[in-house]
């Protein structure tokens, strides 16, 4: 009855306007700016150990053994826990991580890694070449369901003759091998021997050798890492790294604004509009821009007419204004590329230039290919059939927007385009694996190793393989084969420069743009390399530190 007596008219008469007032004030204040924070974050302090840094990710890792989990959320965490034999330095050249150095035999088939001395796992046990051999045996084991096994199955023989030496022999020279050893995270034999890799509790309680070790994993809430004092590369400065799982990017951004998380990846709008417009935010956040790891492209189904005609592909390439897409979709935060490699790295051919926007040239190329607007309806025809096709893409806002811009430009030269955006799993199974598409908008990684055999070689066209556009060019096939067996970096570079030139000339895909990776990091985190090295802002995060004055009351340190 207590609640019901609330109804007696006098009290409700008072509360109703109050509720209204509350709602109105809420809407009003919500639009005002947050109060300025008192702390001044502009001071620089000397390096100090300790403190807690909090960031967020949108999805939870499926497990912490990367070779079987394979998702990007897992890799973000395992990359801090486990080491590989090799790694990339700031300029994206290979260097040793667990390995002190490596050598390649005269016949180019055998690689010998020499491990650093006195390596230890976080539990104090020695890390030796037997762990490396064990990891290789694990990933190539029939029972292991690793999506990444294929590179390692090419190894004919692997041996650990001494605790510091590990050798692998390939049936024939395999140049991408070094890159694959930079991606394989070495697992401890003494903890995993005899366990079923798919069900072992190690996937939730891993022990590694890198800067950080797992402290606590609260399902659906956060993953807490602590500094590993035995880290093989020397200890990091920040004591705890906490990654909160916040699936919604807007909620993440609110947490960033409130100072509850220290860093997050941004989209172009937040980077170039939202944060610059708020002085309070600008005062406490540093913004970083780096060339991203992937590019977006428009890919033709080369097995379908008229896309088998290079003149048609080139015409569409000329008809699309890439700068317009970069400005419109990425707010200018991207670049135009002419080869599938990171500009500025050795593999990217500096003499190539992207197709310029040139609708006149596009029109004349289409005319050459036999297209004309014979019935005067504004749409080109070939043998009476109007030139119309469908662009399929997955539900990705940036790709959808790019498609709309392309649609308009192609309409101007007389091509009719429909757009369809599909959920990822359906998109892959219904369109890509079956080859049932005209044109797609998708992305590829700007790989650190130049080998792109799986994407462009004509043998890789079966369902589920990656040359789904159906590209077939004997010259490119030959270059890709040669590039795989050439261990000399300079000769290899020349091969891939030729490959990129051929690819650009043939235009099986239209490079649309490579977006920048944008990151905000709270100013209380110091020691962040600026300008950002080619390897990205997080590349040397073990050197970051939080001065004593800027440590918030986040986690009590034990």
């Amino acid at each position: 009855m207590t609640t019901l007596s609330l109804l007696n008219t006098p009290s409700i008469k008072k509360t109703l306007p109050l509720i209204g007032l509350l709602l109105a004030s809420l809407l009003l204040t919500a639009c005002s700016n947050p109060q300025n924070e008192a702390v001044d974050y502009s001071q620089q302090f000397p390096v100090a150990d300790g403190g807690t840094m909090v960031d967020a990710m949108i999805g939870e890792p499926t497990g912490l053994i990367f070779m079987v989990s394979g998702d990007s959320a897992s890799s973000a965490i395992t990359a801090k826990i486990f080491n590989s034999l090799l790694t990339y330095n700031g300029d994206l050249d290979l260097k040793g991580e667990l390995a002190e150095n490596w050598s390649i035999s005269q016949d180019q088939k055998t690689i010998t890694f020499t491990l650093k001395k006195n390596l230890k796992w976080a539990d104090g046990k020695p890390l030796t070449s037997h762990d490396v051999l064990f990891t290789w045996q694990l990933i190539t084991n029939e029972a292991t369901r690793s999506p990444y096994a294929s590179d390692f199955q090419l190894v004919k023989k692997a041996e650990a003759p001494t605790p510091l030496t590990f050798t692998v022999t390939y049936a024939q020279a395999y140049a991408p091998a070094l890159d694959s050893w930079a991606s394989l995270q070495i697992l401890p034999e003494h903890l995993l021997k005899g366990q079923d890799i798919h069900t072992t509790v190690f996937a939730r309680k891993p022990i590694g050798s890198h800067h950080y070790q797992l402290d606590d994993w609260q399902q659906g809430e956060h993953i807490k890492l602590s500094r590993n004092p035995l880290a093989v590369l020397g200890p990091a400065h920040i004591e705890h790294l906490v990654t909160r799982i916040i699936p919604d990017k807007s909620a993440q951004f609110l947490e960033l604004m409130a100072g509850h998380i220290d860093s997050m990846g941004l989209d172009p709008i937040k980077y170039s509009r939202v944060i610059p417009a708020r002085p309070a935010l600008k005062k406490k956040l540093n913004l970083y821009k780096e060339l991203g790891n992937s590019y977006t492209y428009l890919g033709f189904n080369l097995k379908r007419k008229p896309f088998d005609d290079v003149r048609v592909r080139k015409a569409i390439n000329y008809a699309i204004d890439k700068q317009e897409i970069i400005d419109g979709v990425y707010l200018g935060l991207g670049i135009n590329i002419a080869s599938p490699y990171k500009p500025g790295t050795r593999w990217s051919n500096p003499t190539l230039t992207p197709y310029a926007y040139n609708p006149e040239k596009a029109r004349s190329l289409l005319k050459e290919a036999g297209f004309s607007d014979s019935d005067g309806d504004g749409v080109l025809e070939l043998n009476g059939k109007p030139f119309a096709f469908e662009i399929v893409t997955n539900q990705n806002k940036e790709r959808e927007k790019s498609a709309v811009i392309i649609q308009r430009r192609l309409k101007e030269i007389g091509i009719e385009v429909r757009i369809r955006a599909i959920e990822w799993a359906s998109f892959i199974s219904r369109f890509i694996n079956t080859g049932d598409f005209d044109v797609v908008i998708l992305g590829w990684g700007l790989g650190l190793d130049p080998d792109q055999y799986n994407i462009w070689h004509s043998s890789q066209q079966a369902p589920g393989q990656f040359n789904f556009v159906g590209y077939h060019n004997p010259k490119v096939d030959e270059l890709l084969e040669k590039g795989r067996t050439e261990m000399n970096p300079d000769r290899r570079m020349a091969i891939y420069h030729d490959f990129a030139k051929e690819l650009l000339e043939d235009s099986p895909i239209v490079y649309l743009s490579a977006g920048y990776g944008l990151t905000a990091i709270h100013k209380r985190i110091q020691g962040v390399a600026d300008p950002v090295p080619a390897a990205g802002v997080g590349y040397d995060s073990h050197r970051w530190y939080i001065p004593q004055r800027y440590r918030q009351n986040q986690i009590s340190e034990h």
Partner: protein
Amino acid sequence: MLKYLIKRILWMVPILIGISLISFFIMHLAPGDITSNEAAFNPETSEESRQKLRELYNLDKPVIVQYGLWLKRMVKLDFGHSFKSHQKPVFLGTTDKDGNYTKGLIEQALPITLMINLLGLAITLLLAIPLGVLSARKYQQWQDKSITLFNFIGFSIPGFWLSLLLMYWLGVVNDWLPISGLHNLNYEHLDTWGKIKDTASHLVLPVLIPSITGLASITLFVKNGMLDVLHQDYITTARAKGLTEHKVVYTHALRNALLPLITIIGLSIPGLIGGSVISETIFAIDGMGKLFFDAVTSRDFPVVMGILTIGSALTLLGNLIADIAYAWADPRVRRGVARG
């Protein structure tokens, strides 16, 4: 009555099998399987490894065979393991030979969702009943009109938008409430009282927002029920014999007006355990809605089927309980059941 109950419970078995069969086939109509995830587009991965995975999970067999295998496990109440989350059990946790306990996915998510939704429902009812009664008593007067207006504003505001706005106002502009998540990062170092306070403050927004946006329909139900009842003869009789207005409304009218609410609560049971993807995503709550959504997008079939089966079983059970409660509350219904 007992015969009726047994009959109803026995009927649930074929209904559940029917539901599971239809769900299973609809699920398999969507293109793709567990291998069509983000790694499916990584050139370092191979089709052979994907095929190996399909064979292991029997995804290469005809759908009807897969359904048979699933049913065979279900008979033993074995919900299986998730394809995606590293072999985590779908429903209840398991302990391996070394004594390590792995929590089941539904076991983890269901209590959170249930708690939030039950609290939300309680608040909705607590607000909706008095508001509905007042609306009916002051029908067409300013009180009724402002309640209706307020309710429909709440009903029309998109929940996610209101959530983000309140998160901004209460969490960023003012440091009054946490923005997202269920616990503070130093939760484990708090004392019991601190833990309760911490959880409660995290729950304010996720509980309040759905109850405000859900207020309209229940208020309207109470109001209409009340309006019907207030015009009945027995109310006129009660008034005629000189009972106070308070007694007429709360003792005689309200009880009858609340009867339809039992049905509404019974119908809301699937919602109680289903959770909401949008609100759970925004507030970073690891509940049933997100579990189901993620399972569908990653084609994690055992999890999808587990949630659907448990969900439908609980829904059928909820309907049964609602019917029994109705019979308990309304003698007319009771007599009808006894005769049938």
